[in-house]
């Protein structure tokens, strides 16, 4: 069994008086894709935000490769190559597409060198040709789906070891959505990137994931191998609706 890279223990997170996470524990192993499932407002986004340091838990621990990273700055966590592609795109609207991508590489820009970055850029452009076409356009004027591509591409530019993806295919055309999921699989296979994935298309996400966790109202209610979850009746009932067999 591969080594455990990310470990979350008994995490409690609140927004003021509102308790969003009520004692979440999970583990992610190296080179693994883990899917997070759950209804709207279950706390999935909150979990990712806490791992990447945007939120500070008031109880619980997060370990990265055995190191305690609880409550650290996002910058600290990014330097460990744990990269969060956030919900709602969050592109830098008044910067150009190109600048957005360069900023993706910000944390390793000095150590990597300009040439390597340019090469990475080319790779990303191959994945999303439209971005190359629009590289001087302000990111805020891109269409919804284009912004989503940019957000993912920006995450890739960061050369993640662990990628935290929050609904990466939201608003993408079916073909592109499929490509993005394939890309995630590709990153995982070729570069050994570990992925923690939130995805509304549960079937699709469980198809590429190794394992999954189901969150409901801030608590983990189920976990297991991806296939097992796919076959689970409760999961089907709750998240796919009865019509799917």
């Amino acid at each position: 069994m591969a080594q455990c890279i990310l470990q979350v223990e008994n995490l409690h997170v609140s927004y003021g008086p509102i308790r969003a996470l009520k004692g979440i524990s999970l583990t992610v192993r190296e080179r693994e894709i883990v899917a997070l499932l759950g209804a709207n407002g279950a706390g999935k986004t909150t979990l990712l935000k806490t791992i990447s340091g945007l939120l500070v838990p008031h109880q619980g621990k997060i370990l990265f490769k055995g190191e305690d990273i609880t409550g650290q700055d996002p910058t600290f966590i990014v330097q460990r190559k744990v990269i969060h592609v956030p919900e709602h795109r969050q592109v830098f609207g008044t910067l150009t597409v190109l600048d957005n991508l360069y900023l993706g590489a910000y944390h390793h820009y000095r150590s990597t060198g300009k040439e390597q970055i340019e090469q990475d850029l080319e790779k990303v452009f191959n994945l999303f040709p439209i971005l190359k076409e629009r590289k001087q356009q302000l990111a805020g004027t891109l269409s919804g789906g284009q912004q989503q591509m940019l957000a993912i591409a920006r995450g890739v530019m960061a050369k993640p070891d662990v990628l935290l993806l929050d609904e990466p295919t939201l608003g993408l055309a079916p073909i592109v959505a499929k490509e993005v999921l394939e890309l995630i699989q590709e990153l995982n296979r070729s570069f050994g990137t570990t992925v923690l994935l939130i995805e509304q298309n549960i079937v699709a996400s469980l198809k590429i994931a190794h394992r999954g966790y189901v969150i409901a109202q801030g608590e983990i209610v189920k976990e297991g191998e991806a296939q097992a979850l796919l076959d689970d009746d409760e999961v089907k009932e709750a998240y796919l609706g009865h019509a799917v067999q």
Partner: protein
Amino acid sequence: MLRVEHVTKSFGGVVANKDISFTFEEGQIVGLIGPNGAGKSTLFNMISAIFPPTEGNIFFKDHQLNDLSTHEIVRLGISRTFQNLQVFKNMTVVENVMLGQHIHSKTGLLSAAFRWPSVRREDERAYEKAMGCLAFVGLDHLYKVKAGNLALGNLRLLELARALATEPQLLLLDEIAAGLNQKETRDMRELIKKIRDSGVSVFVVEHDMDLVMTICDKVIVLDQGEKIAEGTPKEIQNHPRVIEAYLGAEMEEEAG
């Protein structure tokens, strides 16, 4: 009821819509699909007069929309939701929806200041209507929560309720199911059908083919700003250009 004639829209060098024409019959659900950046939202923006077309005309029931401003369009009976949510975050859910009733009341600054009885009556009517719309989409239990605190799925429902509260004849839904899981999408589908059945024509932009193909009477496909196909869902599903540009070869596999 809606006629789009040779509409072109360009932003600087980018041509978002190129010579698009189609008509829209009353009482239908029409789907608008196409790859990312095809120009779907742009078209919606022009129909709701957020910006005018560069060329061409849009007519709604014989009114030319080009020179109207957004707030006038609503009075003609067009309402919409947004792909990138635009709820009034600092207002409660029911207040959000009451704003939909804005055009159906008249209270001005002065009468509001003195709060004549008519003002109170109007407010109460708007409130009733808003609660009705919330009940319709199934959000009535959350009516007094601050909208900014809602989870994404509920926000989509809220936008829908708000749009319905304007009592539109044509409803534009831009990716209303994005961010919903399969079950929630299914519920949304039923809701849209119910809206159509109540006599409102619906124009939907969606990337969820399941949804589009099952409820639309007609589908229009855009690619790189151009209309490449128009027809029934069946026709569209088998249209080679659509499959190539948008659906992808394996689409049938998954659907089937």
